[in-house]
């Protein structure tokens, strides 16, 4: 029977939740890396036991962790024992934590500043890894989206990292500015039909696409309207919260922006709003059903100044028409006095026949639905604030 493994990153450690295909009884493992912020964990699609985790701390900086046994044991890439440098001259573990912006004369030198909150220019400063995206084909290749926004790639299982400087160098970099949570590259989507095409999104710069494997990038924000910036239709400067894609429709993207739920059917070249009848179109997460490319899930949040559900009712909204018509899903979710948030990377879907949907809250609950959102139940109720949720469907 198939199994699922839910990877949960929280403010105070990582947790792994496992169940069989019924998704009724769960085993909880953790906390891993107790006391550290785990911004994101994700498994390799081609080697599900290969997991990567972003472990970070305001005190001690960035750590990359890797597991080769499905999360039972972890190590920093480059030094499996966690201490001794490897023989043969390979880089030791400490190198795996190095994210150094490209400063080469040819590609990196002009990339010196971005826009600060007050409109002045500010140097790029590495702070943390927000999102890890393993390659669809190579377990040792993995991408990392960082704050201040840049994209890095490792081709050696996370031992060493190199920036793809064409993103910061696409001429709009000096106009990017941080959102309230920092200037983070939080979304990385690899196109399964085109290994040269990658989508990324940055708060608050917008969405970008490469069609040449990361060498060059272009903003893909036409159609986005953000009333809170000087030019609502600007090429960059939009606070994109998350983007989702169904692998069978790689040209169709769904976006939860700061305000507005958006859709593109031409690989991001043009967007149109599909907020429709949502009670509020502010939110963070968005995801697509594993088997129905037109079925989309969001969790509306009251506003940019009140990051909790409307009326204290935690409701997932589902559209079966690719947007515009939305229905609230409430069965099993708290419908009074609920004031949690659901952060941008904290929703995922499994690929079992009856699609499972999962999300975590800042109140420490992880909810699961084994029937595409019709019925919900908490897997756990009392974790630290949840930063990210990913799920693996295992044979």
């Amino acid at each position, binding site marked *: 029977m198939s199994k699922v493994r839910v990877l949960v990153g929280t403010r105070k450690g990582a947790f792994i939740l496992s169940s069989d295909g019924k998704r009724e009884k769960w085993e909880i493992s953790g906390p891993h890396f107790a006391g*550290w912020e785990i911004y994101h964990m994700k498994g390799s699609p081609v080697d599900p036991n290969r997991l990567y985790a972003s472990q970070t701390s305001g005190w001690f900086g960035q750590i990359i962790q890797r597991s080769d046994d499905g999360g039972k044991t972890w190590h*920093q890439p480059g030094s499996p024992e966690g201490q001794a440098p490897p023989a043969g001259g390979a880089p030791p573990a*400490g190198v795996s934590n190095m994210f150094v912006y490209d400063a080469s004369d040819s590609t990196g030198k002009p990339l010196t500043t971005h826009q600060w909150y007050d409109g002045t220019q500010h140097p790029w400063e590495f702070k943390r890894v927000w999102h890890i995206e393993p390659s669809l084909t190579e377990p040792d290749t993995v991408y990392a989206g960082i704050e201040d926004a840049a994209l890095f790639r490792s081709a050696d299982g996370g031992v060493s990292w190199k920036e793809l400087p064409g993103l910061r160098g696409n001429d709009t970099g000096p106009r990017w500015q941080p959102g309230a949570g920092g200037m983070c590259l939080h979304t990385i989507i690899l196109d399964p039909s085109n290994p040269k095409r990658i989508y990324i999104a940055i708060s608050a710069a917008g969405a970008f696409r490469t069609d040449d494997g990361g060498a060059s990038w272009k903003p893909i924000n036409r159609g986005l309207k953000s009333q809170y910036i000087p030019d609502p239709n600007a090429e960059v400067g939009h606070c994109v919260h998350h983007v989702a894609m169904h692998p069978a429709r790689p040209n169709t993207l769904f976006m939860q922006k700061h305000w507005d739920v958006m859709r593109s059917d031409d690989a991001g070249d043009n967007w149109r709003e599909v907020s429709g009848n949502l009670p509020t179109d502010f939110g963070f997460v968005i995801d697509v059903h594993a088997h129905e490319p037109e079925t989309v899930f969001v969790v509306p949040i009251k506003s940019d100044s009140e990051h909790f559900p409307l009326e204290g009712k935690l409701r997932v909204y589902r559209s079966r028409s690719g947007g515009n018509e939305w229905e609230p899903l409430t069965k099993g979710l708290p419908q009074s006095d609920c004031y949690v948030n659901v952060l941008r990377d904290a929703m995922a879907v499994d690929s079992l026949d009856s699609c499972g949907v999962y999300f975590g809250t800042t109140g420490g609950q992880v909810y699961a639905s084994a029937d595409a959102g019709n019925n919900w139940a908490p897997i756990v109720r009392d974790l630290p604030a949840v930063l990210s949720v990913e799920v693996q469907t295992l044979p």
Partner: protein
Amino acid sequence: MIRVELPQHLRTLARVSGEVTVEVTGPVTQRSILDALEASYPVLRGTIRDHVTQQRRAFLRFFACGEDWSHESPDTPLPDDIATGREPFLIVGAIAGG
């Protein structure tokens, strides 16, 4: 032999308990201690001082013999009690709740 006391999270990361000891050749300074520490425990690279600038991370401080050395030059020789191992070199995380 130099004794070094790490914050709890870094002891966990380095998979050690209690104090660690390192050998330093030449002058015993903050820099030479941290160089030796990172050579013995590569997982600590970047966690105490920045990978590139080698600056002390903002929320960490260094103490020797009851004195705060955080803002001293990293190349200033430390007291003999540190160099002889009579006193530990303390790496301390800023106290904060949450």
